[in-house]
């Protein structure tokens, strides 16, 4: 395995020749193969054009590139040029554009980008964005047209491990996502950890197959940057195609003899549901040695159902690799060891409400099953602490904190958020978990994050959107998720007058769908003044949820 110190060094250390490289299945479903040398050459060309557009070393450049190969080549071009790419997510179908434009405008301003690179298919969005004051003085380039022809002369700058590699904007607690800074040193440290001998233990025969979006850490680092650093060839399909054709994911693994793939829990569930028995004969998953799972709560039943269904294709359940991570720690924090059965802990439901992960009795019907996310990596520390920061004991639930070379130095130009997240060198993840027999188990989120279909939703955002509706008492809305049949589902409670209840139930569901693409499992309208609040007027989400679950909340018929 090569041992580069930066992404750029890694790119130049990759072998020449036709055999190794990246294979992209584009939005047109055509296959495009780029050997490493071709990626490097194209990255150099794009670096030169970006510099000619006025960028200098360290300048940020936003990428709004729905086509994977355009994204990867432009990202690498920015890296070679010493610029700092800022991935932005493309507009989702069937969603309202205004909320989306607000987020883009916030990101270009918070990252203070010199330019935005997008594609012709984004022209409408870009024209609307350019009308906003936040875009003043920033260039807009269209790929691939902006990179066509003879590149201008360009001398590539030296890039150091401590230089910024990219900014990862997280969904954030409001409509104002924060930019996690990732240095080349962070990236190399994390990659070495999760792809090296203590992680997936990459071999020269490995092939990654993925469809995860590249504007998030799991797709970007897991399938592009990390794999490039260790010379691991990759096959990428578009995320939109996975949703439409889950089977294509599995077909590509068979076709290209994929050994490593990764997906959130919901994707395994979707594939299990959508793959028909008659498809099984044509599928071959016998090459797969790692089927990683992360980014949202992992459910043992989902993974076991997938293993059962896909067993005829040669799929081995030992390939499952539950893991835990977050953008603030680059990507990976803990991994389950490769090639071993996953570990499922059955804990007592009542004790868990008190923060104790006590093993459940064998015959307990309401035991909670929690999948082990494994152990941390050498050079990194992971521990569970109480509110005062003191370490919790074995099987005691607390906040997970992390320290080590993968951990970000902070949020870009946001000292306040950085100080809140990183205290005494420890990254406070906001996630609740416990340790048992050296393994880390994740229980939930302090911040009440709602994760549905792999996407993070902050209750506050949903509550604010609903607060805009006529008849809703602004600030008197509560959104949270409940688990029904093992799946996280959204519940919304709002205070309003009885006469408005029926109309609002429909309008709230519509509003939540149009702004967030989410289906509300239940909307309840309560009389004014019934949702519990703190003395300072903040609502108490956990208390409200508990009342709702026990059926003790007053609601209009």
């Amino acid at each position, binding site marked *: 395995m090569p041992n580069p110190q930066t992404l750029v060094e890694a790119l130049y250390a990759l072998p020449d020749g036709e055999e190794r490289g990246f294979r992209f299945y584009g*939005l*047109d*479903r055509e296959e495009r193969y780029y050997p490493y040398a071709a990626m490097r050459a194209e990255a150099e060309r794009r670096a030169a054009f970006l510099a000619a557009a006025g960028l200098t070393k360290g300048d940020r450049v936003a990428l709004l590139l*729905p086509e994977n190969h355009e994204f990867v080549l432009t990202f690498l071009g920015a890296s070679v040029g010493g610029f700092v790419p800022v991935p932005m997510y493309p*507009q*989702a*179908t*069937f*969603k309202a554009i205004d909320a989306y434009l607000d987020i883009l405008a916030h990101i270009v301003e918070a990252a203070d980008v010199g330019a935005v690179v997008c594609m012709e*298919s984004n022209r409408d969005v870009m024209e609307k964005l350019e009308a906003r004051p936040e875009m003043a003085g920033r260039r807009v380039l269209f790929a691939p047209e902006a990179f066509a022809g003879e590149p201008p002369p360009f001398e590539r700058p030296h890039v150091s491990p401590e230089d910024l590699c990219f900014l990862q904007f997280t969904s954030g607690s409001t409509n104002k996502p924060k930019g996690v800074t990732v240095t080349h040193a962070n990236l190399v440290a994390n990659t070495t950890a999760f792809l090296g001998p203590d992680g997936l233990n990459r071999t020269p025969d490995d092939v990654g197959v993925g469809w995860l979006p590249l504007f998030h850490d799991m797709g970007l680092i897991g399938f592009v940057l990390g794999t490039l650093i260790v010379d691991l060839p990759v096959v990428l399909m578009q995320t*939109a195609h996975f*949703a*439409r*054709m889950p089977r294509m994911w599995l077909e590509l693994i068979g076709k290209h003899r994929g050994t490593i793939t990764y997906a959130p829990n*919901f994707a395994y569930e*979707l594939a299990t549901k*959508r793959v028909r028995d008659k498809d099984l004969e044509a599928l071959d998953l016998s090459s797969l040695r790692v089927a990683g799972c992360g980014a949202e709560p992992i459910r043992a039943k989902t993974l076991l159902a997938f293993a059962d269904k896909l067993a005829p294709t040669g799929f081995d359940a030992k390939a499952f690799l539950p893991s835990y991570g977050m953008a603030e720690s680059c990507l990976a924090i803990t991994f389950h060891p490769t090639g071993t059965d996953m570990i499922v802990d059955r804990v007592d439901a009542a004790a868990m409400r008190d923060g104790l992960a006590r093993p459940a009795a064998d015959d307990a019907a309401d035991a909670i099953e929690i999948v082990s996310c494994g152990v941390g990596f050498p050079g990194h520390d992971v521990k569970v602490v109480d509110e005062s920061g003191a370490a919790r004991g074995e099987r005691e639930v607390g906040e997970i904190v992390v320290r080590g070379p993968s951990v970000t130095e902070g949020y870009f130009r946001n000292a306040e958020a950085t100080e809140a997240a990183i205290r005494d060198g420890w990254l406070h993840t906001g996630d609740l978990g416990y340790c048992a027999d050296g393994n880390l188990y994740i229980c939930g989120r302090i911040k009440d994050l709602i994760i549905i*279909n792999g996407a993070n939703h902050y209750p506050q955002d949903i509550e604010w959107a609903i607060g805009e509706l006529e008849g809703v008492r602004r600030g008197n809305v509560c959104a949270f998720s409940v688990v029904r049949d093992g799946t996280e589902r959204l519940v919304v409670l709002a205070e309003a007058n009885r006469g408005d209840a029926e109309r609002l139930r*429909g309008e709230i*569901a*519509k509003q939540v*769908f*149009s702004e967030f*693409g*989410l*289906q509300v499992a239940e909307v309840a309208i309560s009389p004014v003044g019934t949702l519990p609040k703190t003395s300072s007027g903040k609502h108490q989400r956990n208390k409200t949820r508990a009342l709702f679950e026990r059926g003790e909340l007053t609601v209009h018929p």
Partner: protein
Amino acid sequence: MTRAELFEMFQRMATEIAEKDFSDVTEDSNIQELGLDSLSTLELVGAMERELDVQIPDEQLVGIQTVAQLLELVERRMAS
């Protein structure tokens, strides 16, 4: 395939994917109000693409609101 057959196919597939009854749906129904989330909607589009052997580019889906608009788009792609 007639428009009525296409609409029936839409209903059948939506029922299969969302596991709920879509017999009240009309062509004028707003897709957002049918209770299909964004993932299910993409699944539905994918299922129709497979069954009819057409491809619907993502950018053409932006702005589609009613069932009729979606079916018209499918018909246009089938004709081209």
